């Protein structure tokens, strides 16, 4: 039997498929490298924000330390490639796995904290990771690691001049995070996590195992974030602690999800579609000479959106599509 929820969820899939087709075709008519780069970065952050959303949105744990998993993923895949010759196509998954593992390690002490205590603990853990990598010579220290170019290849995920392959790579990544979120939304886990988010005590009294729920969400979230980091490393060709582990990055990962609509399927993507171009464009047009105008604009947008649309930008599209007969309670 078709009920309301399965019908809505199938609708989401159709919308997703249409948007996917649009995004597959989008770069084809665009020739200039700057715009293509902008789109790639936006899609990458859409995927990262969706990964954050799995823990922060569905499970309600506001992590401000996702830069750690991103950086770990970037470093694992890069070092595997540079030192051991493991192709990044494999390394990407290794980076994700280690990222998920680290998320579990971080979650183990931190999930005993709640609210602001948890948020601050994640900031601190990420900062410890950043400082350690900055001072750890084996991983290149503050100098970072250059990824040598070994010819265009889908196995090494390296393309000298082409942007198109990266476009499809990040699109596949973002799609994977979306599908994960879609599956979670309809699964038993998703319901448990949302219960944990809304009220821990009530959830526990209903038999939801709170700590394992948080850990599972953290592992999945960390996995995708690490994977995103590995992809970023291959795209840029150079990593250092400042570009992959900086605390600011954790905010850039969380913001699209929060401002787009936390705990929703489309919020993180919508947020990234608005915020990432805004930040990149304002930096290139206002950042240089205006000195700080880009930051002022960005900060202002965050404040205004957060106050005016607390449920996120998706609420702009919040048309309730209630089938007739259900809304007014009359028998169907």
């Amino acid at each position: 039997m078709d009920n309301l929820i399965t019908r809505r969820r199938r609708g989401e899939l159709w919308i997703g498929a249409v948007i996917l087709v649009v995004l597959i075709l989008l770069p084809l008519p665009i020739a200039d490298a700057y715009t293509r780069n902008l789109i790639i970065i936006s899609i990458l952050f859409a995927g990262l924000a969706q990964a954050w959303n799995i823990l922060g949105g569905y499970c309600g744990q506001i992590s401000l330390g996702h830069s750690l998993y991103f950086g770990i993923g970037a470093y694992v895949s890069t070092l595997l490639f540079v030192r051991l010759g493991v192709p990044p196509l494999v390394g990407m998954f290794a980076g994700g796995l280690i990222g998920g593992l680290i998320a579990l390690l971080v979650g183990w002490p931190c999930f005993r904290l709640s609210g602001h205590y948890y948020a601050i603990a994640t900031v601190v853990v990420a900062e410890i990771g950043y400082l350690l990598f900055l001072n750890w010579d084996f991983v290149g220290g503050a100098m970072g690691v250059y990824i040598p170019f070994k010819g265009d290849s889908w196995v090494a995920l390296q393309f000298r001049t082409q942007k198109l392959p990266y476009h499809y790579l990040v699109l596949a990544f973002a799609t994977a995070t979306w599908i994960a979120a879609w599956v979670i939304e309809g699964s038993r886990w998703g319901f448990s996590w949302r219960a944990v988010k809304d009220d821990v005590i009530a959830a526990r009294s209903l038999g939801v195992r709170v700590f394992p729920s948080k850990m599972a969400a953290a592992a999945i979230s960390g996995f995708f974030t690490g994977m995103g980091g590995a992809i970023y490393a291959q795209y840029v060709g150079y990593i250092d602690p400042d570009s992959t582990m900086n605390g600011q990055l954790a905010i850039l990962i969380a913001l699209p999800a929060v401002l787009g609509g936390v705990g929703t399927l489309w919020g993180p993507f919508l947020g990234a579609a608005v915020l990432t171009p805004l930040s990149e464009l304002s930096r290139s047009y206002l950042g240089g000479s205006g000195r700080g105008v880009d930051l002022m604009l960005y900060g202002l947008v965050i404040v205004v959106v957060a106050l005016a649309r607390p449920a996120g930008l998706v609420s702009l599209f919040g048309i309730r599509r209630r089938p007739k007969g259900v809304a007014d309670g009359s028998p169907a």
Partner: protein
Amino acid sequence: MTAMVFQVAIGGLLMGLIYALVAAGLSLIFGLMDIVNFAHGELMMLAMFAAFVIWQYAGLDPLMMLPIVAILLFGLGVLIYRGLIARALSVNFNRGMVQIFVTFGLAIFIRGAAQFVFGGEFKSINTGWLAGRTAEIAGVYLPLPQVAASFVCLAAFAGLLLISRTEFGRALEATREDRDAVALIGIDRDHIFALGWGLGAATVGVAGVMLAGFYYVAPNVGANFALIAYVTVALGGFGSLLGALVAGVLIGEVEAITAAVLEPSLKQVGVFGIYMIVLMVRPRGLFGKL
């Protein structure tokens, strides 16, 4: 050897008292209304720039301008509450995240504005009664601006303690205990919150002015101090004045010792390590109430 041990201990104490005062302002606002002000470091940075500007154009010594900057920051704190935080409190969906990201956005805005007005390069206040002077006691060197800053910090803590004994302080405490019940006894919650923000901002303003006497001034100077302030507050227990003081000094000492024993670039790893250990043993911090 003894002199060196004392040198490290004194250095940690002097810095720790500044950390403690920065954290006290944060803790005050948190304890009052359950909001973490992520723009706290930026408020400190603004106070440092205010001190720099007053020093440059009026030639006042940091010690003399303390009341001016404190009043300015008090006004700014009230303004931030009235303009932003009161609105963030009235949101009825997703309130926790809205509060976090409103102050985050504000922090980014303030940092951008400071960069726009003052530029990104480091500035410092290098003349004044105490600037650059040190005293020596039994082989231990005491930089006088830092010593003065420590005394001011202690005085500020004493001041906060006195305020908590006044009518206003009792109203603060009552509002913290039960923000709805206070309305019944004629306390205007909004008014108390605004004053609390003013007081928190003024507190970090005092710390900023004294810090400007011996530290560089730049738009991004707040970020690092803010991070330490969050750790201090979480370590001492949110909302606890005594916790902020003890944790601040503890962090100053751990930082100084790590820098001396391991490596200066790793000094914060020691701080964060201590914090993680304490949180595992005592999740609500040293003096936090549940």
